[in-house]
């Protein structure tokens, strides 16, 4: 009963100073809104990335070149993997269904008077299958074209849009860093991430890429597809053992390559993204704290202004606890109000970010409950000192206060 009356009184006193209440709540509004929108952006980025990564298949093992070490001195060059390593893996490792070596670099593409910068990926014939690229038109290059390092290319859908709007690209010639390539196929769009568009690339035979475009002898990664996910560990061990042998790495020395499967990569990416989310959330939480200090400040002013009122209440029989509660209710009400508006604003911001910025955002119930609970806790924490100050006022002095 009394608590309801106190609530009404608190509301009335907040409504008397609408602008002041709004400005005080603004700190909390901004804090909660930023916590919610930051976490939603972080979570969205994380889940979207994990989805896309898992699209590449979880039965893929990737071998990446490591740093070559001579006498404990790291040379910094990462050119320990070659096409021959890829062939060797394909021939000697069992339980696998495909191997695709890759080299990639960004390059300028030119078709008639249009140009674009894109990733040029040199791959083996089975890459399209391993990386889940489906052909839209034409075909992927075959082993024969790879062996003879033909200048043919398969175009991703983003590049297609940029260079060949409204034109059938098959049979056309495109210049890659000034060299002519014949377009023999296009791929079906996979959909872009905000930071990575798998369709913004062209594929050329790995040999052509090494000899005619990039001028390199090594490969940058080798994808190995396992027949069954259960065999992943066995295959990884086999690859390590065979490659160590092939690279003449003696017992006790470190590998000059890394073998990872996409599940591991998925996990480590997920962890990194989570850290990123926490970081964003943490920064936002600081603004929530600042909002709390704003509440304390205004409540202190309010207590001073209302000294006489406190005196009256005490004279007619309000106990210390009841004065304390009254002021606490006020500060919690501010943070409650701010928290509520902040949640709506935060959801709004994340909607806007996903609509305009193209980032996927996920507003989790957890982040709402967390930030709302935190803001109410801040109301209690920062409201306590002013409320306690009010509760401890001497009634005689408070009544005399002008």
């Amino acid at each position, binding site marked *: *009963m*009394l608590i309801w*009356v106190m609530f009404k*009184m608190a509301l*009335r*006193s907040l409504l*008397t100073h609408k602008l002041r209440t709004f400005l005080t709540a603004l700190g909390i509004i901004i804090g909660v809104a930023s916590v919610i929108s930051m976490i939603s952006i972080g979570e969205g980025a994380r889940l979207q990335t994990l989805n896309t990564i898992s699209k590449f298949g979880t039965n893929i093992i990737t071998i990446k070149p490591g740093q070559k070490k001579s006498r404990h001195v790291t040379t910094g060059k990462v050119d320990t993997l070659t096409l021959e390593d890829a062939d060797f893996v394909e021939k000697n490792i069992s339980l696998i269904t495909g191997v695709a070596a890759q080299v990639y670099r960004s390059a300028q593409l030119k078709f008639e008077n249009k140009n674009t910068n894109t990733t040029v990926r040199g791959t083996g014939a089975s890459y399209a299958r391993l990386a889940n690229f489906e052909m839209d038109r034409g075909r992927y290059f075959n082993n024969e074209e790879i062996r003879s390092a033909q200048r043919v290319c398969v175009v991703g859908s983003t590049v297609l849009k940029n260079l060949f709007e409204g034109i059938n690209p098959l049979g056309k010639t495109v210049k890659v860093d000034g060299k002519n390539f014949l377009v023999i196929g296009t791929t079906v769009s996979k959909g872009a991430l905000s930071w990575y568009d798998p369709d913004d690339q062209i594929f050329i035979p790995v040999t052509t890429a090494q000899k005619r475009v990039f001028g390199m002898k090594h490969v940058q990664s080798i994808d190995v597809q396992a027949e069954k996910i259960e065999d992943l560990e066995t295959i990884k061990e086999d690859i390590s053992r065979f490659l160590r042998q092939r690279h003449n790495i003696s017992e006790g020395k470190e590998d000059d390559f890394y073998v990872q499967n996409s599940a591991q990569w998925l996990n480590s990416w997920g962890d990194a993204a989570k850290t990123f989310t926490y970081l964003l959330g943490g920064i936002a939480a600081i603004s929530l704290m600042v909002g709390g200090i704003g509440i304390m400040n205004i409540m202190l002013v309010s207590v001073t202004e209302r000294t*006489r*009122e406190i*005196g*009256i*209440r*005490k*004279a*007619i*029989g*309000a*106990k*210390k*606890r*009841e004065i304390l509660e009254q002021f606490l209710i006020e500060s919690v009400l501010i943070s409650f109000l701010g928290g509520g508006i902040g949640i709506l604003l935060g959801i709004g911001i994340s909607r806007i970010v996903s609509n305009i910025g193209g980032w996927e955002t996920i507003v989790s119930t957890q982040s709402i409950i967390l930030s709302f609970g935190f803001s109410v806790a801040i109301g209690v924490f920062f409201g306590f000192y002013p409320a306690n100050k009010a509760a401890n006022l001497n*009634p*005689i002095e408070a*009544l005399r206060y002008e």
Partner: protein
Amino acid sequence: MIEVERLSKTYQMGEQKVSALDGVDFTIEKGEFVAIMGPSGSGKSTLMNLLGCLDLPSSGIYRLENLDIQDLKPNQLAEVRNRSIGFVFQSFNLLPRATALENTELPLLYGRVAKSAEIAFQALERVGLAHRAKHRPTELSGGERQRVAIARALVNSPAIILADEPTGNLDSTTGKEILNLFLELNQEGVTVILVTHELEVAQQTKRIIQMRDGKIINDTMNGVLSC
């Protein structure tokens, strides 16, 4: 009803101890109407604060309805103020943002009394302000505000009403009306203690206590003042 024995209050003013009330004795029976008079600094405000349980004496005994007030803790004092004492101040001291009815209801809320709105409305009726129940203090005249304050003091049926210069901020006509209200209430059996410096006001009460320098110098019954 009120028994005061050797009641003293000293304040620490820097290095010096100032004796605001110096060994006061008196008793007040139920149904009395007492005026306390005296120049400023005579200790009448201090006495009112002690009688109103807003402050504790430095020494002596204050017994209100057989309760030893000087031994109480702050929360118990708050309860006594709520239950047994009604305050009427010179400057009304109403909550500016609350309506007349809400101001009147407040002591009942702190006392957790049921049907508080009804009782508060009856108290407003008693002081003739039922028609102004929904108005805020700023919308009321000085006399009306003081009536609301009296309604608030009455609402808990307290043992005593302590009025500190209740007519001090009012014009003489309104002041007379307020004083008449106190007289009526007293005739109905309410004990009233009133601080005033107007002899005219004091003469209408049943008993006058005169103070100077923290002591009672005169305590006269029936309004017959021996100067």
